[in-house]
């Protein structure tokens, strides 16, 4: 595989084993400049090991790997200032305030204290500047760790499960920040085990399991390729389940006593039928998700 000139990351047949355990069993992909790329999979799928090889923290057993046209292993001082890595939200110096923390990281890259302070504003931590990092909330600490990863204005940003332990509001808040980072023109590579996160944020995702990439593509494309039925549900008891089966051929109808659900690949006539009967109370229309893609690919439930 020949790396294209514009490719920010190019990986071919990358392998890594720990003893007899194969963590990454020969993966290949390319990340284009400015792309928001997701590596998706359950715990133990090999996402983190893949990311660590891209960052230059682990030596691949085999395969070709170039990041910003440079080899990341062994530790490459020419590459380090051009990449930003966000680790866990607790990877800080003990007992420093938010401002001291980011200024320390900034100085490691020769970045001024002023720009470091400005970065706090970007991630919305101005008010917490004098708070010790141990006292920050989970979401605030995560935003600080992202600020520390971005303080030297890297071209490429790696994030390992950035929304790991956050509550839903903090997650959404962080998603906005991640989108802005990418909109500024940076390439972002993110691992996650949240399907919805990958679907919301990523231009393309690689779905991994057992050290291999099962599918690679835009989330919408992956879902569309699945050609799975749309699930339309309304309140139970608006009409008989038998009536519903007659609407369109091949519809799968079920009623759990709360909702009546019609699963079909041809939703238009079903929706029209429901509308004419004024049976739209509690209507929900759900397409397939990446979760369904995973289920179809592996034949098992996604173990988040």
């Amino acid at each position, binding site marked *: 595989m020949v790396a294209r000139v514009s490719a920010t990351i190019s990986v071919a047949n990358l392998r890594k084993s720990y003893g007899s355990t194969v963590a990454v069993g020969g993966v290949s992909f390319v990340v284009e400049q400015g792309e928001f790329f997701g590596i998706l999979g359950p715990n133990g799928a090999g996402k983190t090991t893949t990311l660590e090889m891209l960052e230059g923290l682990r030596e691949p057993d085999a395969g070709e790997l170039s990041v910003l046209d440079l080899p990341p292993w062994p530790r490459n001082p020419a590459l380090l200032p051009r990449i930003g890595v966000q680790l866990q939200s607790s990877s800080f110096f003990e007992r420093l305030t938010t401002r001291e923390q980011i200024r*320390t990281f900034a100085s490691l890259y020769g970045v001024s204290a002023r720009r470091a302070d400005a970065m706090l504003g970007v991630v919305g931590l101005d008010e917490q500047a004098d708070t010790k990092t141990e006292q920050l909330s989970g979401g605030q600490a995560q935003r600080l760790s992202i600020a520390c990863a971005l303080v030297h204005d890297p071209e490429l940003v790696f994030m390992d499960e950035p929304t790991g332990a956050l509550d839903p509001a903090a997650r959404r808040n962080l998603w906005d920040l991640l989108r802005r980072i990418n909109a500024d023109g940076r390439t972002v590579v993110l691992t996650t085990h949240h399907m919805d996160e990958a679907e919301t944020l990523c231009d393309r995702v690689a779905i991994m399991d057992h050290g291999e990439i099962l599918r690679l593509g835009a989330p919408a494309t992956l879902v569309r390729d699945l050609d799975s039925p749309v699930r339309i549900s309304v309140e139970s008891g608006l009409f008989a389940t038998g009536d519903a089966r007659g609407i369109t051929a091949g519809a799968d109808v079920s009623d759990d006593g709360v909702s009546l659900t019609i699963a079909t690949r041809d939703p238009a006539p079903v929706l029209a039928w429901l509308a004419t009967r004024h049976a739209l109370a509690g209507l929900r229309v759900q397409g397939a998700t990446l979760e369904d893609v995973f289920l179809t690919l592996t034949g098992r439930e996604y173990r988040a």
Partner: protein
Amino acid sequence: MNLTALRSLSRAIFLGFVRDRAALFFSILMPILFLLLFGSIYKTSSAPKVTVIEVGRVSLLDQAEAGAPGQLGKVLKVTHEANLAAALESVRKGNNDAVVQEQGHNLVVHYSIADQTTAGIVQAVFTSIVQQADAAAAGRSAAYQLTTQQVEDKSLKPIQYLAPGLLGWAIASGGAFGASITLVNWRENKLLRRLRLAPVSVGSVVLARVGVSLAIAIVQLAAFLGIATLPYFGLKLSANWWMSIPVVICGTLAFMAIGLLVGSFAKTQQAATAVANAVILPMAFLGGAFVPLDYAPAWIREVSYAMPLRYLVTGMQNVMARGEAAVTALPAIGILLGLAAVLTAISVRVFRWDAV
């Protein structure tokens, strides 16, 4: 080496230390409290004067004083009391050591044998006084005279071993805990890995940590010398005391190397603390930090040669308190540096960036 990075890393580590109340207490305040406490307890342990109550007038005492001015005062402290019963009660309670009375040609001495040393001194002193008086009465000039002379002992006064001993222990703990806990914490919270991803050399990170520990050790040294040389504690620094500065520096390096090795194996902060304690605390007893080797049993003196702390403590003691030449600290410095080099080399081999 990037100086800006080195400075800001040092600053970050330093702030982390001074904001850690527990670390401040254990490495700076507690050793000083120990020094204040033990320094006060052992201050009065030099041979006590015997206190005697003179009931009525005892002409023999005057005579002895006249015969050898100032000599008696070195051994006896004499107070006066009119009432014999009250004086005896005072001896019974242990507030004074003896009561002396003159009854005609009889010198009556009441003393307690609760403390045999004092009892011995009382008997000896008064026997001698009576014999001299007898001789004088017989018109002979005394063939023998009592003179007392304090021997300038080559063994150390309490503050002279307490200050280097407790300081050695403080520096050993500071070095070992500073290195091991930083390493384990930074590995655990992945800061180590984060630093590896920044364009900063391992040398800068190590130098920052070592630099801060050395600065702390010098502060400990200054605080100890400041307190121990107060007139109340009375440590008199020998001319070559400055040689204790390189000894402290090398001791810090040696104990940081011990901490580095502990931190390379320990997985959690709790484990690192426990192991570092298990290394340092027995060493404080066996290496002459808590128990001065001069007074320790022979087996402890033998064992102490295997204790790195011994070299830090005796190295400081020799130049700080015993008044020995500056070069006498060199063997200790050599041993401490050698230990630091060997342990660091081992640590580099077993070093792990990550917990897994």
